[in-house]
C-alpha cells in the first residue's frame, strides 16, 4: 500500500459555487472509476477535501494531479486493491490517521464481466460476487462502525438498477449489486438511530470503461454520461433526504414497471 499527500492553496473564488454543502471531507473507494472521477471533480468545485483509494497507483496519481489542477484543497491517495479483504485494515488505518474527521464515504468500485464468462467459469462468477458484494460489505462495515461511534456522517455506495430484478443478460452482476442494495438497506436502519445517513445509488447503464464491452451502438440512448450521473450523486450526497437515488431519474419509473412484470412472463423475456 502506498500513500501520498498533496496540498494546494485554496484560490480566490469569485463566483458563487452553488448550494450550501454539508459535505466537506470525502473518502472515495474506487476513485479511478469513470463515475467517481466526475463525482470528485464536482466535489472539488464545492471545496471538499478528498481521500482517494484505488488499485492502480499510477492512475491514482493522474487523478490526483487532475483534481489539484482544478483547485482541490487537499487530495490524499492510498493505492490498495480493495477486492482483497486483507488490505482493508491498512486502508482503514490510513484513513483514521490522516483523515480522521472524514464525513462521507463513497464506494464507487465494481466489476462487470461478460455474463457468458461468469456462466462458463465458476472462478469468474465468484470473483464478480466477491468484488461487487463481499468486499464491499466488508469494507463498509469498518466505516459503519466508526461513523456509528462518531454519530455522524454518510455512507454512500454505487449499486445498480441491475440489482432490482434478475435478468437473463446480467444476473450474476445484478445479484451482487442487488445483495449490496439489501445490505445498505439494513445498514441504513441500523445506523439511523446514530444519525448516520446511508445512501444507495442506482445508476442505469453509464458510458464508462466498465461498460465498454457492452454494445453501446444498439442502445446508445440508454447510456448516461458520467458527468450527469455524478451531478445526481453529488446532489443526493449534499442533502439529508434521499435514501435511494436512481440516476438518471427515469430509471426509478422504468424499474418500478420492470419489477411489476409477473414472473411467468418475465422469465420468457431475453433482455
Amino acid at each position, binding site marked *: 500500500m502506498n500513500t501520498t499527500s498533496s496540498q494546494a*492553496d485554496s*484560490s480566490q473564488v*469569485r*463566483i458563487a459555487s452553488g448550494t450550501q454543502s454539508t459535505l466537506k471531507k470525502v473518502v472515495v473507494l474506487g476513485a479511478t472509476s469513470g463515475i467517481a472521477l466526475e463525482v470528485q471533480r464536482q466535489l472539488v*468545485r464545492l471545496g471538499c477535501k478528498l481521500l482517494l483509494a484505488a488499485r492502480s497507483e499510477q492512475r491514482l496519481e493522474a487523478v490526483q494531479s*487532475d483534481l489539484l*489542477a*482544478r*483547485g482541490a484543497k487537499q487530495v490524499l491517495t492510498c493505492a490498495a486493491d480493495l477486492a482483497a479483504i486483507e488490505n482493508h485494515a491498512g486502508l482503514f488505518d490510513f484513513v483514521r490517521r490522516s483523515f480522521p474527521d472524514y464525513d462521507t464515504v463513497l464506494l464507487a468500485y465494481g466489476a462487470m464481466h461478460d455474463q457468458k464468462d461468469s456462466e462458463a467459469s465458476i472462478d469468474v462468477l465468484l470473483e464478480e460476487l466477491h468484488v461487487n458484494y463481499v468486499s464491499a460489505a466488508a469494507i463498509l462495515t469498518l466505516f459503519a462502525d466508526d461513523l456509528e461511534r462518531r454519530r455522524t456522517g454518510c455512507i454512500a455506495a454505487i449499486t445498480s438498477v441491475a440489482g432490482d430484478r434478475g435478468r437473463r443478460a446480467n444476473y450474476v452482476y445484478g445479484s451482487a449489486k442487488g445483495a449490496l442494495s439489501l445490505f445498505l438497506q439494513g445498514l441504513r436502519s441500523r445506523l439511523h438511530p446514530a444519525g448516520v445517513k446511508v445512501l444507495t445509488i442506482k445508476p442505469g447503464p453509464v458510458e464508462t470503461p466498465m461498460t465498454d464491452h457492452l454494445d453501446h451502438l444498439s442502445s446508445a440512448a440508454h447510456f448516461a454520461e458520467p458527468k450527469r450521473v455524478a451531478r445526481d450523486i453529488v446532489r443526493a450526497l449534499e442533502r439529508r433526504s434521499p435514501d435511494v437515488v436512481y440516476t438518471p431519474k427515469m430509471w426509478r419509473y422504468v424499474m418500478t414497471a420492470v419489477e411489476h412484470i409477473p414472473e411467468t412472463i418475465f422469465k420468457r423475456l431475453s433482455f
Partner: protein
Amino acid sequence: MASILRPAVEGSLLPYGLGRSYGDSCLNVNRELISCRRLNRILGFDESSGMVRCESGVTLTEIIEVFLPKGWFLPVTPGTQFVTVGGAIANDVHGKNHHCAGTFGDHVHQLGLHRSNDGLVVCSPNENPDMLRATIGGLGLTGVIAWADIQLRRVEGPWIEAELTPFQSLSGFLDLSRDSDGRFEYTVAWLDCFAGRNLRGIFFRGNHSAENTKKFRPKRGPKLPFALPGWLLNRTTVKGFNTLYYRAHASKKGSAVVGYDSFFYPLDSIRQWNLLYGKQGFLQYQCVIPESNVEAFEELLDRIARSGMGSFLGVLKQFGAAQPAGMLSFPRPGLTLALDFAMRGESTLQLMRSLDDVVLGSGGALYPAKDARMSPELFEASFPRWRSFVPYIDPKMSSSFWRRVTEAQ
C-alpha cells in the same frame, strides 16, 4: 493510444471530440473515429502565469467552470462552449476578438501529438514547429492531440461590458467596426439577411468588465425535446422574427453589463437548438471575402436576399490582419459572414453554389469546419497551399471532408 494507432489500416482513423463541426470534417464515413472524450484530465495549471496543460478532450465549458472562479478566461472562444480543446485547435477556431487576439491556435504554446509511426511528438515553436503549424487548423489529420498548453487570459470576473448599436448599411458596419477595433476586445454583428442591399443589423461590442461583486449564475435555458416541423421556419416567420429582433435591439441601444454566457454563447442556452430546423436539418455557410472587395460582399447579400432562404442567424465580423497560426487556418483579413440555411434540398444547394461563385471570384474562402458540400475547386482556391500540408498528415488518418475535397485532385 499506440495500441489503437499502430495496427490500424492506412487512412482509416479520425480523432473525434464533441462533433460540433457542422459538416463532414469531423466524420469518417465507413471508417473509424477515435473518441477523445475520455482524454479529459487537466494536467497542470500555473496560477501565476495562467498557463494550463490539459488533455485534448477537455471541453471549453470545463475550462471556464474551473478557471473563471480563479480569475482566468479562454484567450479566444468560438460561439459555443460545447467543443473540446482538441477540436478548437484542429479547426483553429476564432471568436469575437480575432482582430486583437487572433485565433485559438495563437494561444497554444506547446502540444503533444500521438502519431502512428513516431509515438508522442512534442510540438512547439522550438521543437517540430512545422508540425505545430500543421496541427493547428489541421482538421485532426496530423494525429491525435494528446495534450496542449494554453495561455489563459486574466479577467476580473464573469461579466462583460457590452454595447449594441444598430446599423443600416455596409459602410455603417465598416465604420463601427473600424471605430471599435482599438477600443473593444470583442466585436461582432447580427445581420438581417432579408434586407438585401439595404443592409441592417445590430453591432455588438464589449470588453471584460471590472465588475466582480455581483453574484453570477450561469443561465440554463430550455432544451428542444424533438425536431420541430420543417415548415415552421419559412420566409414569413423568419422575416418577421428578424424584424422583431432588429427593432427590439435597436430600441435597447446602449451599454449594459451582461454575463459571459449570454454574450459569447447565446445559442448554448437553448440545448439542441439545431432541432429548430426540423428533420432535414440545416447547412451553414461561412465565407470570408477580402476587404477590398466590397462589391462582391454586396453581391453575396443580394443573392441571399433574393433567394428568400436566409435564416435568423446571420453573423458578420471583420477579421484582423494577423498572420494565421496554422497552415490551413481559415481566418484572413476580410469580412466573414456566417449564415444558416434550412435544408430544402436542391434549391438550397443551388443557392450555395451561386454564393460559391461570388466567393471564388472575390478571392475569398470557405470555412471547412462549417462545410458539408464545397467543391474541390473552391477548397483549392480557399487553401492554395494545401499540398504543402499533405506531408504532415498521419498516414493512418483521413476524414470524409478531406477525401471529398482532395481526392479528385
